[in-house]
């Protein structure tokens, strides 16, 4: 009975409108496309921080890259009026995430911090979340990856190394969020302060195009950014209610 009532509780919780408003935090990222230079430092930062494997030329040729954050490029016009725009795309941590509904084993779900999770050790590898994700930000481990020794000494011990058959994606650097919460607790604080957590990509961005923070705090940088008149969300028409906001590129 307790099992059943727990199940019903969870069910009701998920069904309740405004459930997401009760999140402890609402981690959000804002990316100013007017500042993005396409340098891809964010990609290397992510690769270093999150133990993203080196897949090799053959696998890349087969389209098996793993890039939790990638910089997409879109050309407009032809010579001499050609224009190139960059847009970093990573997991958008949608509040209405299509991927979350489809995972048969709940390896991906929405947690109380407004994060779209991916629990690697629960994943059975149906890859359906990657199909359902319109942003194509979920990457699959098609085999066990290998680091030529001693490259493996660089691996971040705070992030697990994913084995074959597991889906992976951007976590907003959950290990850093966890660490910041840990520090907050040490200091006897209830909440993490603004600026305490910076995912690797945000930390490293040379032009400071990326901003990260808790949307619940209406004062901080990210809240200001997402109220900017230039704000938009990629593929907003799909109503994914994503947590990554982009600021439009200025065409002057």
């Amino acid at each position, binding site marked *: 009975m307790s099992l059943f009532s727990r199940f019903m509780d969870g069910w009701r919780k998920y069904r309740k409108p405004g459930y997401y408003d009760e999140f402890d935090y609402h981690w959000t990222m804002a990316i100013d496309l007017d500042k993005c230079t396409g340098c891809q430092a964010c990609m290397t930062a992510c690769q*270093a921080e999150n133990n993203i494997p080196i897949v090799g030329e053959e696998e*890349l040729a087969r389209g098996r890259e793993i890039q939790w954050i990638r910089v997409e490029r*879109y050309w407009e016009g032809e010579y001499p009026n050609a224009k190139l725009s960059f847009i970093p795309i990573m997991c958008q941590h949608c509040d209405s995430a299509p991927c979350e509904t489809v995972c048969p084993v709940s390896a991906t779900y929405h947690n109380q911090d407004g994060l779209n999770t991916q629990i690697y050790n629960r994943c059975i590898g149906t890859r359906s979340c990657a199909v359902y994700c319109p942003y194509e930000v979920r990457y699959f481990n098609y085999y066990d990856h290998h680091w030529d020794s*001693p490259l493996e000494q660089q691996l971040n011990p705070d992030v697990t190394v994913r084995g074959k058959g597991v889906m992976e994606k951007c976590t907003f650097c959950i290990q850093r969020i966890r660490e910041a919460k840990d520090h907050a607790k040490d200091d006897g604080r209830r909440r993490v302060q603004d600026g305490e957590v910076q995912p690797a990509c945000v930390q490293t961005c040379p032009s400071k195009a990326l901003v990260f923070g808790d949307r619940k705090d209406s004062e901080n940088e990210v809240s200001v950014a997402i109220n900017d008149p230039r704000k938009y969300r990629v593929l907003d028409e799909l109503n994914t209610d994503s947590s990554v906001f982009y600021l439009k590129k200025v065409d002057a």
Partner: protein
Amino acid sequence: MPNIDRRDFLKLVGAGGVSVGAGFMLREANKDATEYLIPHVVAPEDFSSGLATWYNSVCSMCPAGCGISVRTREGLAKKIEGNPAHPVNQGGLCSLGQAGLQVLYNPDRLTGPLKQTSARGSGSFEQITWDEGLDQLGSRLDLLRAARRGNRVAMLTQGVRGHLAQLFDNFMRQLGSQRLLHYDFNHPHTLYAANQRFFGQDRLPYYDLHNTRMLLSFGADYLTNWISPVHHSLGFGESRQGSSNERGRFIQIEPRMSASGAAADEWLAAKPGTEGILALALANHIVSEGNYAGADRADWAVALTDYTPAKAAEQTGIPQSTITRLADSFIDIQPSLAIGGGAAANHSNGVDTLMAVNVLNYLAGNIGQEGGLLLNPEPTSVVSQQQQASYSTLLEFAEAARQGEIDVLILNGSNPVFTLPQASEFREALASIPLVVSLSSFLDETTAMADLILPSHTYLESWGDDFPEPGMGFPVGAVSQPVVSPLYNTRATGDIILALARQMNVGTALPWENMEECIKDGWRQIYERGDAQTLAQGFDSFWTSVLRAGVWGETAAGDSEFTLDRSVISNIGVQAPEFSGSEEDFPFILHPYLSPNFYDGRGANLPWMQERPDPMTSVVYGSWVEMNPSTAKELDLIEGDLVDIQSLHGTVRAPVYLYPAIMPNVVAMPIGQGHQEFGRYAKDRGVNPIEILSPEIEPITGQLASSATRVNIVPTGRRSKLVKTSGTSRDLGREIVQFADVNGVELSSAGSNSIPITEVTA
């Protein structure tokens, strides 16, 4: 159990026994391997297991000199981040800087001293001990020094600054050799020369992108590899959407769109090598429109008479209206800034072009202005001992080697075999040197030709310091400290030099036990000279705080008063660029550019960088040649077709990439791939366009005019798959990247597919 006979019983017992064994083994086989907890013998003070320790240091992946913070866990380096306190990068860091970890943990590192056992370049090395190696080199040097033939020793190093440079200098002086050559492929000789002539200073000014509202870049890819890309990116972001209400405008003039061109608001393609003419035409318009009111206005009017916008339009291919518009807005929007570099500075008229750029800054009153160009003060402490050798200096050196004037060559990190054109015949010149010693950490192309390899530590394992050039308008210094204990049987470059000095009995001039002491001693002098802006009590606490902060700066500002020498004005002028090869035989101009990932090729052995898609094309793991789609159509080529790129001096073969933003008569190739050595990730991958460059030089500096090669494109009829991460780089009206005007009002784009959006209210 009824009705069981003996046989059945025995059978059952047998089967049962076997299965008991099987069950036993099943669990035995599934047991985890034993893991060990290895404690320290003595607990270290600076880290404890499970907790990260951060060390501040300096990045050495390119000459920008960014500050880094290295995260370590259990004594292993885990991540490199920008040092937020360092004024150059303020926390940011580029891809290559972060990939420094893979220099440290590269599987292809040299693990100990090696000695060539058969012919050079055969790749057969045997391991020797440090004593043997140092002995072999040291005794040779000692003999030469004793015989007062020290000048027969040469040292060729990558660009090195700070106390290590001083040490090299000192060492070579003790030897009695003047042959200390710093060589970086990307060193902006022309920029130094132009600034020297214009401002009378040997150092670069500070380009204040942060506060500029209008940037005119003549070929300088300031976001990728020009001087200090991370700092410029910071400035770019700040100027674009920073505290100011007015958004900075960025205009890029180059024949092939670079990352900076993509970031710019306007990208203009002037004919290669005519950027200087364009700059002077802008200047002409500024002066003739009366927008310059300086006392020397008349002089300028005379000097610029030949450079009317109408004439320039013809020479550069940029419409006259655009020229006048640019000139007007360069004056109207203040503060403005013009910079020059990249391909524009690598033509036979490179210095003149950059002089012309300075003219623009002068006329617009940008010099010494915030948001313009700030002159750096004379460094009051350690002078960066840059003795960068130009291409012609290296040619002279090669000639000296061929003449048998060189007995010993010590290489430090520099890879001239890769970064010099084949036409220089540098590899062949090496053969005439009896003893070539390399201090490189990797078996690169030049090191493979060495007789003796004394591998040095990587920058993350050794002591060092750096004084970024240019300063930030004030001098900056930073100490680089070892963040991990050395992985292999290697030694710090400074320690090797000091050991050699001891061997040669010149230890009195180089009295330090090791590099750490040398650096500490140097910083003690900085401290004692009293210009250390710190309240620290005593040197030790000063030293600790410098190490902790990772950076130190002086509050000295440059002299903003600047008067232009009148002779400069009359000498202003830009000639048409010269190219090697005739236009008939070689219809295309080759535009080699530094790969955003590999710099001058030094990043090619880092798997992260190999897998980092090229920002513009998304190609990974390879080389390609970019051409305008219309050119490709004429030649009947599509993406992935292999073509031969022929110059007067050689041929390379690469697949075609159709690049929408390149002039039709220009083909571009990235530099960085095409290594023949340099480890498993770099070896035999792509091609090196430097090989086929013509040895055209810029006459004033002797710098290689690397953009002055004409080539022919010959289709081979074969194809190769270009490995790209990108699918289709057109957004098909899907509004993935959206645009707004300056006020944030959405700009509608044609062919939109918008569906009315209903806001989800939870």
